[in-house]
């Protein structure tokens, strides 16, 4: 075979091709070795807990572990009529253990989520617990309250038997699984989360739009002015960019309050009456104004870096071919800036959708976003699995936008400062 003999060999007698591949493999390994400390650090401390949230969000073992005997005796129950004596007996035993551990309150809260009215009948049940006599638990239980004789309540208990459930995700979009196992919306007046999602998207969208409308002219001015003026004006963009978020939020709180500078000014020019000052804080207006100013640099910088690369001779060429300034701008300049618009808008949108601090401080009731709700459940209701579910829903939205950003702009092209 001639090709075998013609293979180029290195001095060690190994074919060159093999040797080169070996070197390349070694180089690949070297490059990976350099990245690996950070990569593994992030995988362990950051990515794995985020994946862990997925587990948290479907973890429903709390009730499962509270009523182990009840659920095992319920396995054969068809759910049509009241469960057997056996089930009532095991429920009594399980509940007694819970009372001893002082955990029956938690169970009441959990079951009340499933069906309203559980709290009161469980309380009553707990009070009568010591009066129970051996045998005929069914009759004694139903005697405590007639609702214990209602099969719907037992079905509600049975629904909490599985160790894992996606009910938190349903709750996050104002839905739940009803008695028949169908997924339905909650009553009209109790729908809060859907409204919150819509509001978050709406605020993020309008903040992005406002940022775009404000950033475009100034980015254009910065890109076309001579260096010595534009550097000076650039400070106006960069100083807020580098300034603490809390400082900027604080200054908006001072400006927007009812006795604040903006209201003072409006009264002084006679726009509003002194006793009728505008309420611009602790509502959505405050969130819009403060978030727009805070996120504006993130729109200006990508736009500026794109506009800087557009040669002024293109616009001049357009004009010399008879285009009016407006036509030239619209047909020549504007299309060239679209990459910058895309980059800036996606960046601002991603940042806005997950904003927490500013809405919390100036948003009040009507200006808070989904992040604030997540924090609320983390810190006050301690419903961590619900917080995780909401967080993951938000995250999947952000990652979708991130993916688009990566496709259109490329993360390697993120520029800072």
């Amino acid at each position, binding site marked *: 075979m001639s090709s075998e003999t013609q293979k180029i060999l290195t001095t060690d007698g190994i074919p060159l091709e093999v040797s080169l591949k070996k070197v390349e493999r070694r180089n690949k390994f070297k490059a990976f070795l350099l*990245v690996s400390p950070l*990569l593994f*650090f992030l995988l362990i401390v*950051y990515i794995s807990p*985020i994946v862990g949230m997925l587990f948290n969000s479907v973890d429903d073992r709390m009730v499962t572990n509270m009523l182990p005997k009840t659920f095992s005796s319920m396995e054969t129950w068809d759910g049509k009529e009241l469960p057997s004596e056996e089930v009532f007996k095991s429920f009594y035993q399980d509940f007694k253990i819970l009372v001893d551990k002082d955990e029956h309150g938690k169970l009441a809260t959990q079951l009340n989520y499933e069906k309203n009215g559980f709290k009161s009948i469980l309380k009553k049940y707990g009070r009568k617990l010591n009066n129970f006599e051996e045998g005929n638990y069914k009759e004694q239980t139903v005697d405590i309250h007639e609702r214990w004789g209602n099969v719907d309540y037992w079905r509600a208990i049975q629904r909490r038997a599985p160790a894992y459930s996606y009910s938190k995700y349903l709750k996050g979009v104002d839905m739940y699984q009803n008695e028949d196992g169908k997924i339905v919306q909650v009553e009209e007046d109790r729908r809060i989360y859907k409204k919150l999602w819509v509001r978050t998207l709406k605020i993020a969208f309008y903040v992005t739009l406002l940022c775009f409308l404000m950033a475009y002219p100034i980015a254009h001015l910065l890109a076309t002015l001579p260096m010595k003026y534009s550097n000076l004006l650039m400070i106006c963009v960069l*100083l807020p960019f580098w300034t603490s978020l809390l400082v900027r939020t*604080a200054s908006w709180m001072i400006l927007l309050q009812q*006795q604040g500078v903006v209201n003072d000014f409006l009264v002084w020019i006679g726009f509003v009456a002194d006793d009728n000052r505008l309420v611009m804080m602790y509502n959505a207006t405050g969130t819009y104004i403060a978030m727009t100013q805070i996120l504006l640099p993130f729109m200006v910088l990508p736009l500026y870096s794109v506009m800087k690369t557009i040669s002024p001779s293109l616009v001049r060429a357009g004009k010399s071919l008879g285009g009016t300034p407006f036509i030239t701008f619209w047909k020549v300049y504007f299309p060239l800036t679209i990459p910058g618009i895309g980059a800036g808008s996606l960046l601002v949108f991603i940042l806005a959708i997950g904003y927490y601090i500013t809405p919390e401080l100036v948003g009040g009731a009507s200006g808070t976003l989904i992040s604030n709700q997540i924090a609320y459940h983390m810190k006050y209701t301690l419903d961590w699995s619900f917080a995780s579910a909401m*967080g993951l829903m*938000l995250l999947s939205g952000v990652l979708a936008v991130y993916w688009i950003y990566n496709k259109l702009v490329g993360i390697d092209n993120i520029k800072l400062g």
Partner: protein
Amino acid sequence: MALPKYTEPHYRIWHYVYLFICGCVFFFLIAPLFVIFPLSFNAEEFLVITDGMKRLDPDAFSLRWYKDMVYGTKNPWGLAAKNSFFIAIFATIGAVILGTVAALGLSSRYMPYKGIIMATLISPMIVPLIISGVAIFFFMAKAGLAATHTGIVLAHIILGTPFVVITVTATLSGFDHSVTRAAASLGSNPVNTFMKITLPLILPGVISGALFAFVTSFDEVVIVLFLAGLDNTTIPIQMWTGLREQLSPTILSVATCLILLSTLVLVAAELLRRRSERIRGINR
């Protein structure tokens, strides 16, 4: 931007309108920062510009809130500042080391799966802070690092690395790799080559990444809110509590100091950017 003489009147008008709009936007961007200065010298306890201040009456101004910031009884700012600097410095060191080394690997042309790995390394910058906060809190609670400086430093390293990775990869994109090969051919080992050749050349990128990492850590509140105990309070946490509970002018004194600090950072970052551009310009 002077207009040519032959400009038609309506374009002339439009041009001035455009400049006016730009002026308004610049004002909107920068003015809020300047409200803080006069109010931090307020002699009164209110966060409004008093009549005395409007008349420029010297009695209406005082340094009492600055004194309160430094000497005030039971004031939390000393401890907060100490913690903030401690956490930010260590988080910056960690982020710079991990980020620079990773950036070196990422900009090698042999790097496998570059796209997905880069996306992973940048993700802490993209993922909403509240979600990062929840996830890191779960981890630190399990690892027994909640309410410790170590936990907060680790969390801030996570947040800081994307900035270092981005700035250093950007510097390395204009980097002429033949200089490291030249060093190697002259008998230098890789570590020596990195310290003597590569690092001095990419230093502007490294330092500007470090500035970002420092500022991110120094200004971070969401994750610290989840992780901090009473001993780990930081400046942002104190400001956050102050802003939520009662706006005292002391906060504005602190804010003024922070604005001065960010001005310094801005100047440093700007000088570095120019230097880095110059170095890359020579290479081209």
